């Protein structure tokens, strides 16, 4: 054990903890990340002095290639593509952990002790499942894989069988570490299982899936730490694992669903049957109407959803909000925890468009304000404002906490067309007498609204 290297790792671990601590407040967050980055540098530099290392050229080339790809991706990636980027980076992180594990086994797996090979098995399982699972999640977010749940007959039985065989290989491997066949079968099945796990999950459930994959990727790194006997890996991996776990629990709670239901429910398929059709007419409103309402309102609340991200409407919203504030209208933004495709998605987009975070309100903060709100503007959000979740116990989303825009004096819904939301549910909000529908692309609607308000 080289004491200097161990000190580097200790310093890294402490810096990581301080780094995350910084994230508890927006003001200290950047400094915190700087500390964490310093910790990472310390860990990498320390490792380069590891006496086991005999050749360094591949390391430098690898760091250079990876670093440049990472830099390019992070500089030119638009903020709206953040969910895709995050999914992709979960895949990379998990792949690294899985490959280290495979290399370890290929090198001296047969001589490993029982517990060691057990830790290695966890690393391989988590790493491989997360790798392919994240790639599918990326595909769904990017649009190359169908966003709706993909199901087939006997899916659950098939998956369970696969899982059983995979775990069987794992147990056999722990029993006999030299059984290379068991190792490679387990690895292959884990790759397959990652695909099968994410394929039946609909795009609207992505916030949970993303958090869960985040958690797995971290735990894979922690398992690597057990295999290599390296504490900094255990600490960083566990922090990541728990962060992802907490986020997925929060996301599930925000949808009032259990983890099991999200993972195995194949949501879209169920919803068809359960709801009676909502009937009534939707009232379409004109641009001028909405502009007048907004211009003479006292309090306006904007509720963004995934539609704002797809239409890239965050700048247009900001313009309108600024104009209204300039006229003395009180403007707030109500953000539902699962609005968008990953935790905090809407906050990042609005921050990008220069909306100060003092205007961003969480669901529980904004709901008491809504009865005093003159106009609530829903921008490409659907399920998170669906009053059925509160009123109709038979609805598939019953019990999901919502932003209660229907309590506002008037509601304007910006929507591309009169289709259903991503979950395929009818939204009675659209049929309420207080609600006016403004059809069209969110971005151009908002831009025209801004002009119209100026003319009022």
């Amino acid at each position, binding site marked *: 054990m*080289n004491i200097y290297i161990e000190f580097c790792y200790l310093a890294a671990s402490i810096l990581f*903890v301080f780094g*995350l601590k910084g*994230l*508890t407040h*927006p003001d200290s*967050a*950047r400094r915190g*990340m700087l500390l*964490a980055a310093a910790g*990472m540098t310390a860990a*990498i530099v320390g*490792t380069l002095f*590891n*006496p*086991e290392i*005999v050749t360094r050229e591949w390391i430098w080339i*690898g*760091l250079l290639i*990876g670093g*440049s790809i990472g830099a390019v*991706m*992070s500089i030119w990636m638009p903020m709206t593509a953040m969910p895709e980027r995050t999914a992709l*980076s979960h895949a*990379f*992180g998990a792949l*690294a*952990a899985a*490959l*280290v594990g495979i*290399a*370890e086994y*290929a*090198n*001296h797996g047969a001589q490993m*002790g029982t517990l*060691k090979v057990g830790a290695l098995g966890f690393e391989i399982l988590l790493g491989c499942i997360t790798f392919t699972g994240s790639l599918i999640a990326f595909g769904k977010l990017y649009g190359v894989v169908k966003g709706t749940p993909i199901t087939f007959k006997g899916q659950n039985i098939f998956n369970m069988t696969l899982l059983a065989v995979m775990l069987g290989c794992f147990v056999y491997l722990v029993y006999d570490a030299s059984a290379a066949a068991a190792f490679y079968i387990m690895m292959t099945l884990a790759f397959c299982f990652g695909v099968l796990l994410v394929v039946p999950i609909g795009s609207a459930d992505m916030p949970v899936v993303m958090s869960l994959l*985040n958690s797995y990727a*971290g735990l*894979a790194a922690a398992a690597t730490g057990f295999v*290599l*006997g390296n504490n900094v*890996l*255990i*600490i*960083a*991996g566990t*922090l990541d*694992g728990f*962060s992802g776990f907490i*986020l997925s629990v929060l996301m599930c709670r925000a949808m009032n669903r259990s983890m099991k239901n999200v993972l195995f429910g194949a949501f879209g398929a169920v919803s068809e049957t359960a709801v009676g059709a909502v009937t009534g007419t939707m009232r379409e409103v004109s641009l001028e109407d909405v502009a007048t309402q907004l211009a003479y309102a006292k309090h306006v609340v904007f509720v963004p959803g995934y539609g704002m991200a797809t239409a890239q409407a965050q700048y247009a919203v900001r313009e309108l909000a600024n104009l209204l504030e300039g006229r003395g209208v009180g403007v707030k933004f109500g*953000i539902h*925890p699962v609005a968008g495709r*990953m*935790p*905090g998605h809407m906050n*990042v987009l609005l*921050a990008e468009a220069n909306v*100060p975070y003092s205007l961003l309100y*969480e669901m529980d903060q904004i709901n008491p304000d809504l009865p005093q709100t003159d106009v609530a503007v829903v921008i490409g959000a659907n399920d998170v404002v669906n009053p059925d979740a509160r009123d109709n116990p038979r609805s598939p989303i019953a019990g999901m906490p919502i932003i209660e825009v229907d309590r506002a004096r008037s509601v304007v819904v910006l929507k591309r067309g009169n289709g259903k939301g991503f979950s395929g549910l009818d939204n009675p909000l659209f049929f309420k007498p207080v609600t006016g529908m403004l059809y069209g692309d969110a971005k151009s609607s908002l831009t025209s609204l801004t002009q119209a308000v100026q003319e009022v």
Partner: protein
Amino acid sequence: MEQLVFDPRILMASLYVFALAAFLGYQIISRVPPLLHTPLMSATNALSAISVVGAIVVAGRHNESSISTWLGFIAVISASINVIGGFLITDRMLKMFKREIPAKPGDKKGNSK
């Protein structure tokens, strides 16, 4: 340096580290406001790229088969994508969060985008 069979003392020490890190992680992460959940995810993602440490050793040590070296090399690439990319993009995001937007002139600058 690396042991193939777990010394029970090391295993116990590792489990202590794991348990305490889990507890600490829970305490810290549950204090992160929902406002910063996306940066949190990309930051922890960068942290979990710490597997670069393992990858570096695998890529640089003497391996019995060259396949292991190759696997280590690819692992170094994919982990370092996350190290650099993760920290840079987290900083890019955090830079955007402002409590108040300074008056109107600064605001006009934002319009140009």
